[in-house]
């Protein structure tokens, strides 16, 4: 999908920003549209993705899981093996390079699970950029290992105690900070959200995922997959997987599925399912779907996985949902935990809780699919950061 010049995907997207930020956003837009087609920049990016971050990542046929579920052949795109432990690194290296080209000396970022914070801190260390991370104090408590990693990498971690003290509030604080510091600072947004050009730019940096899958699945199966599945916080790992398949004529039959967090259930107040339960609204610079009350006050999102508890979704997903091109489903905490255990035991791979939401789709559906169906699941990150959360949750269930 191409967004129009004001950054709209259909009616979604745009640039709803305070006036002070307009020149800063324009600067990014210009720099990015130049570098996007700049061979040197793309070569430099590819160099770091390959030699520093470890691309390409494997596309692994999960034979044990496939056989146990007894239906579709399940492939896992192993973004968990990327340096940093999640797909986030694709975007942080891209944007940090952009920041350097723009002459910025400082990068700031929001983080929920801490994966984007870690990715940003690594890029900051690598490229010699002063780094500050904004993180809700609730997320700091539940993602301690990542907080320690960010600090070791030399970043300053600012606890955010406003609002619901999670991801959306971290975005608010990062934006406030940027409003005063944009002259020397780049706001390194972590997902396909925010004002134009962020949704397009982050999607482009993450598209390396889908491009590799295309090539790898042709090598291994000689044809494109029937199903593409990814979890959705803001939607960057999902866009990265889907996007390269979206423009292709012979891909029109591919069933693409984004999995939102259903938390304690869609019939409760505690979930992060902006597409299933949200309405159109405007926050963080974009028109998209948001969880909100009847007055338009944004509601808190909830998920056992910190990376999915954002009350909105990137505008391109809102558009794809309206078109009916991508199906948006959800998985509860319980289903995600179950998927976490299942993958860990059957394949010896410990997935991030975020990614476990996508695995859960396979567990629910693969058994009903034909044996020659091919499903590719984006394993967006590894689960080391979630061990405490999982152990506590499992203990609770057993007691």
């Amino acid at each position, binding site marked *: 999908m191409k967004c129009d010049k004001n950054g709209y995907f259909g009616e979604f997207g745009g640039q709803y920003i305070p006036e002070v930020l307009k*020149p800063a956003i324009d600067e990014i837009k210009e720099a990015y549209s130049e570098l996007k087609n700049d061979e040197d920049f793309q070569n430099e990016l590819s160099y770091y993705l390959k030699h520093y971050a470890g691309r390409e990542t494997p596309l692994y046929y999960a034979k044990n899981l496939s056989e146990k579920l007894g239906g579709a052949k399940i492939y896992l795109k192993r973004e968990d093996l990327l340096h940093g432990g999640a797909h986030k690194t694709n975007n942080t290296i891209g944007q940090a390079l952009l920041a350097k080209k723009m002459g910025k000396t400082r990068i700031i970022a929001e983080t929920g699970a801490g994966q984007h914070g870690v990715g940003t801190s690594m890029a900051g260390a690598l490229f010699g950029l002063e780094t500050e991370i904004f993180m809700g104090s609730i997320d700091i408590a539940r993602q301690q290992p990542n907080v320690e990693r960010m600090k070791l990498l030399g970043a300053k971690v600012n606890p955010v105690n406003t*609002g619901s003290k999670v991801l959306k509030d971290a975005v608010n604080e990062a934006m406030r900070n940027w409003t005063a510091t944009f002259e020397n600072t780049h706001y390194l947004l972590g997902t396909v959200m925010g004002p134009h050009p962020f949704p397009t730019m982050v999607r482009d940096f993450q598209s390396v995922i889908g491009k590799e899958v295309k090539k790898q699945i042709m090598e291994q199966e000689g044809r494109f997959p029937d199903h593409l599945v990814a979890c959705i916080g803001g939607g960057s790992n999902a866009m990265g997987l889907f996007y390269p398949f979206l423009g292709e004529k012979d891909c029109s039959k591919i069933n693409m599925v984004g999995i939102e967090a259903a938390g304690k259930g869609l019939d409760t107040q505690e979930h992060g399912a902006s597409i299933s339960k949200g309405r159109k609204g405007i926050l963080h610079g974009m028109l998209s779907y948001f969880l909100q009350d009847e007055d338009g006050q944004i509601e808190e999102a909830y998920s056992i996985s910190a990376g999915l508890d954002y009350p909105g979704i990137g505008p391109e997903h809102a558009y794809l949902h309206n078109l009916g091109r991508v199906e948006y489903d959800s998985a509860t905490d319980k289903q995600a935990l179950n998927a976490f255990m299942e993958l860990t035991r059957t394949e010896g791979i410990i997935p991030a809780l975020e990614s476990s939401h996508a695995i859960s789709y396979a567990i629910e559906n693969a058994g009903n699919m034909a044996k020659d169906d091919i499903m590719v699941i984006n394993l967006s990150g590894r689960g080391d950061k979630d061990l405490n959360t999982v152990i506590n949750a499992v203990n609770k269930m057993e007691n």
Partner: protein
Amino acid sequence: MKNLNNLNEKPILVSFLVSGDPNIEATLKYMKALDEYCGVIELGIPFSDPVADGSTIQEANVRSLSNGFKINQSFDLLKEFRKDSDTPVVLMTYYNLVYNRGIEDFVIDAKKAGANGLIIVDLPLDEAEEYQKICKKHEFGTIFLVAPNTPDERIIYSDESSTMFLYLISTFGITGTRDSFEKMTFDFIKRAKSLCSDNSKLYVGFGISNEKHAENLISQGADGIIVGSAFVNIIKEYGDSEDTIIKLKELAKELHGGIEKGYAKYIKSD
């Protein structure tokens, strides 16, 4: 820029309060207390995610929302205020609240309640076409914001698009009080004045809290100053009490004095 409300010829004080901080009845009392010193009152409608606001106004939003604030309460409050005063009132909020109600319904309800105009902090001109059409249709005031880094042509366009006044953001950053103002702000006021139409009103806001600020900014040619966090801080400290009213009036009077001094300087320099 059309002068919808015949705003005063001399520079004015614009006071900002958050509806429902700490409760709706108190906000009405505070509006009445500040009325005699103000050319315009700016009434904030609290939003869950006020990204352009510093901690003082954020906390005021939280105080109001955690008491169960609903948008209609701002309108009801304004209707009450209108029984005693015809001081222009502009509402200040974030776009989601307007969009969610429906732009036209919001404007109709606001106007019916007695509001004269609206400031939407996160609605830049580029996204405001429909909003401007609706405001024009209902003869409702529009106010856009410009900042020291806004290019000349965009300041002119913003001036033309603002039917009540143009809001000059003093420096980069969010709301909250500041120690002093620098050359950047003074240059910005002068630049804006030279670009905008002669009968436009240019009010400066963000960071202003005392007499000296008022004097300095008005002496550069601003037509008004907008003061928020300094008033909200008083409300935070003294809560719903008589003391709050006394302190609010004291500060308004002090700022008013600064404006008079600044204006005298400006006239002399002119």
